[in-house]
């Protein structure tokens, strides 16, 4: 099984069309994810990024085309998924440890508890993202960054081969963003293939190996760096305003008057 997985691409998309109520959001999409990749898909809201993610995760059936995860369909434990934090009810009565344990539901069985091995795995996952000391806290008591790390720990608990993140650093403070970016880079260095989507070029972390731009249902210019074409295609900002920002540990920042005003 492991050898088969090593021979297959983590993600192989061919001729994929998907959308809602028969209306395609994107058509004929091709995309590959290599072993150890760290891909960021950037693009404006409404460009089709979340629909692509949902289709890969099997939440939306494709209209046509194929999505292969290691040569097969998406299965529990192979892919870890971190949703947008605003999709979760923060008043839900649940501790950080219980959130992380949810990721281990892949080991099935009708029982109301998690066994010692599962708890140990959850503890290791929490330690890896630095939130073990928060394990008994309610999620309602967490900061945005702490909650995001809890969700990453949940996704990592079953030791997935691919980690998919939907806007992982949206609405986080700059310092917390840096910390989350470091965690993602470390996860990728440990051999996990990472794929994330973001609408903000300022949220692309340093460790990213490939950047693709998605807009109007198309992916363009899959390259290691942000290009002028990407900016023109995906955003309305002129490329000359694009800044490389070392100080804040962001890889890119747009300094056009409109974006500067938004960030203020």
């Amino acid at each position, binding site marked *: 099984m492991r050898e088969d997985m090593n021979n297959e691409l983590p993600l192989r998309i061919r001729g994929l069309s998907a959308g*809602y*109520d028969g209306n395609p959001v994107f058509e004929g999409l091709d995309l590959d994810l290599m072993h150890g990749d760290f891909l960021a898909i950037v693009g404006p809201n409404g460009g089709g990024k979340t629909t692509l993610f*949902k289709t890969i*995760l*099997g*939440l939306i059936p494709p209209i046509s085309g194929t999505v292969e995860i290691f040569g097969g369909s*998406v*299965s*529990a434990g192979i*892919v870890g*998924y971190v*949703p947008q934090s605003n*999709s*979760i*009810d923060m*008043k*839900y*009565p*649940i*501790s950080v440890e*219980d*959130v992380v344990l*949810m*990721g281990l*539901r*892949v080991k*099935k069985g*009708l*029982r*109301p508890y*998690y066994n010692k091995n599962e708890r140990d795995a959850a503890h290791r996952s929490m330690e890896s993202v630095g939130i073990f000391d928060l394990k008994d*806290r*309610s*999620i*309602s*008591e967490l900061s945005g960054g702490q909650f995001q790390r809890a969700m990453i720990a*949940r996704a990592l608990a079953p030791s997935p081969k691919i980690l998919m993140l939907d806007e992982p650093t949206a609405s986080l403070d700059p310092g917390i963003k840096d910390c989350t970016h470091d965690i993602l880079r470390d996860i990728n260095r440990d051999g996990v293939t990472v794929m994330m989507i973001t609408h903000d070029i300022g949220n692309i972390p340093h460790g990213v190996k490939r950047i693709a731009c998605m807009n109007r249902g198309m992916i363009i210019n899959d390259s290691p760096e942000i290009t002028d074409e990407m900016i023109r295609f995906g955003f309305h900002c002129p490329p000359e305003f694009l800044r490389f920002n070392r100080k804040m540990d962001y890889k890119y920042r747009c300094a056009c008057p409109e974006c500067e005003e938004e960030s203020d």
Partner: protein
Amino acid sequence: MTDWIAVLPIYQDMFLAAVIACILCGVVGTFVVVNRMVAVTGGIAHTMFGGVGFAYFAMSVLMVSWLTPMWGALIFGLAAALILSLTSKMKRIRQDSMIGVLWALGMAAGVIFMSMMDRSVITPHSYEAILFGDILFVGSSTLIMMAIVSAAILVIVALLYREFQILTFDSANAHLLGVNVPLMRTILYVIITVACVMVTNVVGIIMIIALMTIPVAMANLFLKNLKDTMIYASVLSTVFAVFGLFLSIAFDVPPGATVVLVIGCAFVVAILLKYVMDRSAVQSSGT
């Protein structure tokens, strides 16, 4: 003054019915509250009134003797649950609109069927008893059935606890973790419906929502764990319901309404207590 020693054996079944209903509502109601299904539960409960009316009509006019009001309520409630479950993911239909439709149609159908029944064949419960509960007249057979059905629901919830927790916390991830989301959602709707039918005996159709939501909301103010919320909601609900029943006997007022009023007052006190606790915590951390 009421002679408690003398009257308590008379009310024994009433107290037992209340305790069973409170435990059931504490557990099932926790999923209702955390999954924001309060309106859904209200819709199912009110649709059940149509089933009660239809059962009386079927028994008295169509001579279908097996279709008791409880079965009628269960059938209409399950139909409502199925419709709401199916429409919850439909983009073209808003679920709250569908809740409103079922809520109103259920009540209207109940009134029409009750008016068409033959009262010379069967004497129905009063509207008041159906809508606001008739716990004083819970018989032994109803009590045994409530106990068995409630025990079965608690076993199902225990076995599917992890699935329900994932489903109600993050349904998108539930699918990825191998949970059969449509099946689990349907089971949850069915459990809620059956619990509503059982609780109808205690507080009636209109006040089911109170037992399902208020104790859970109260426990939710102080607890950060789903299991603890279920346990404390059941305990709080039982304590206040028993206290409410004692008050209803002492002051000769309707028991179902008294129970709801007592639980409602306790909720207000709990909110104030939580506010004071939070303020003192902020002050102590500031010094």
